[in-house]
């Protein structure tokens, strides 16, 4: 499974990429592979308050609906509208075009509590 080095990971299989104070969030390659065939993503609302480990979005495969939790606190500033037309981007490019939302991160130090690529890799191995 692909676990990029430059991202931080939540135990619940979300990744976050921090650029300035903007965090981009999606689900990991492992998670999309487990879910398989993503058919719908319920995106958060722009302006919504994200809190760590709080339900923020839903990714649905043919078989099941899975809750997505925000890795850190912040305010949702953008959602990936491309997923409305093609939710399978989550499967084909989980770390790229399959991103789910961006948030203005309240406290970048919260990322320190998340897992490194190495720690997440050992979690899923």
């Amino acid at each position, binding site marked *: 499974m692909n676990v990029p080095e430059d991202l931080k990971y939540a135990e619940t299989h979300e990744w976050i990429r921090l650029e300035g104070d903007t965090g981009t969030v999606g689900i990991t390659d492992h998670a999309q592979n487990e879910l*398989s*065939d993503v*058919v719908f993503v319920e995106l958060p609302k722009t302006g919504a308050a994200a809190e760590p480990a709080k339900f923020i979005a839903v990714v*649905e495969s*043919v*078989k099941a*609906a899975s809750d997505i939790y925000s890795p850190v606190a912040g305010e949702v500033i953008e959602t990936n509208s491309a997923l*409305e037309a093609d939710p399978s981007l989550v499967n084909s490019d989980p770390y790229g075009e399959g991103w789910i939302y961006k948030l203005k991160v309240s406290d970048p130090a919260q990322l320190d509590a998340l897992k490194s690529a190495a720690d997440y890799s050992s979690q899923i191995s």
Partner: protein
Amino acid sequence: MSRDVIQDTPLRAEHEKLGARLVDFHGWRMPVQYSSIIDEHHAVRKAAGLFDISHMGEVVVRGPQAGEALNRLLTNNLAKLGLGQGQYTLLLNERGGVIDDMLAYRLGEEEYFLVINAAKIDEDVAWMEQQLQLLGLSDFTFEHLSAEFGGLALQGPRAQDVLEVFFENHTVHLPERNGIIRTPWQEQELLVARTGYTGEDGFEIFAAADVMGRVWTALLEHGAVLGLKPAGLGARNTLRLEACLPLNGQDLSPDHTPLEAGLGMFVSTKKEQEYPGKDVLTLQREEGPPSRLIAFKMLDRGAPPREHYPLLAEGETIGEVTSGSLSPTLGFGIGMGYVPVDYANPGRRLEMKVRQALVEVEVVPKPFYKRETP
């Protein structure tokens, strides 16, 4: 039989070789998918898919009174079956609710073969044995052979082509729709029925458990060039839902009759034999059922329907989804559910509650998908 221990089908090693994702399905370790549910679904619609159905139960009833006994147990009229023919039929409780649905085949003049649902094997067998004892008929035998049989389903527009290649040089006259034949293959006996659970043409093949691995492997080898792929329970569910084939435990339940489920053509209230639930069904046929199992589609993109989502009309909950999914063939959400008859006509708009939101759905005629027949 104890259900504490998860059971394997004779094909477990084959599934593992193919990289299947295995899940616990009513006490059986079964493949939910090999590649992807959607890929496998399309393979069955466009070419062919091969499913392990060894979890299903088999019962053989033999003897001079076998037909009479079963006709006092099941809803359809077994007397209509000629040799080598099969019919869809139901086993009911005394309230007319569904215990199980099944295929009953007439293998011989006095020999019947029943294929029952995996999740219901113990309950069916207990109920059938109890009811049969009450009949006072003695000239038949009832054998529960689920452990001896394995089964697989070969489904799709290329299924017949695959089977013809599989039988190679032998001249096998394949059965007609709903028919069954007994045929030799590599010194073994196979039962080949032209039935299925996908809405496509296809076959279900039953044989001794220790033969199934060879049949499975040979079919996949011969069929690959024709587009045959192994397919799991995930695709089996989306395929059967598009065809509006009910799943017992979801779309069929002890609290709804087959008439409510829209299965009246498999219920004989005219045959002379009594059977559990017949009086309830006879009355319901006169008065009309209070509710109907509807098929509905979503009108907008959105989260696909799922089991237990509430169905509403004018703000009131009137039922719930019994089966739902994105339809891989149609590209939108589809589902079924029981609602009072006043809300059951095609064209009627209802609302479905998805988490906190209400989305609009429309009642449509069944099925969602019907194959083109040549």
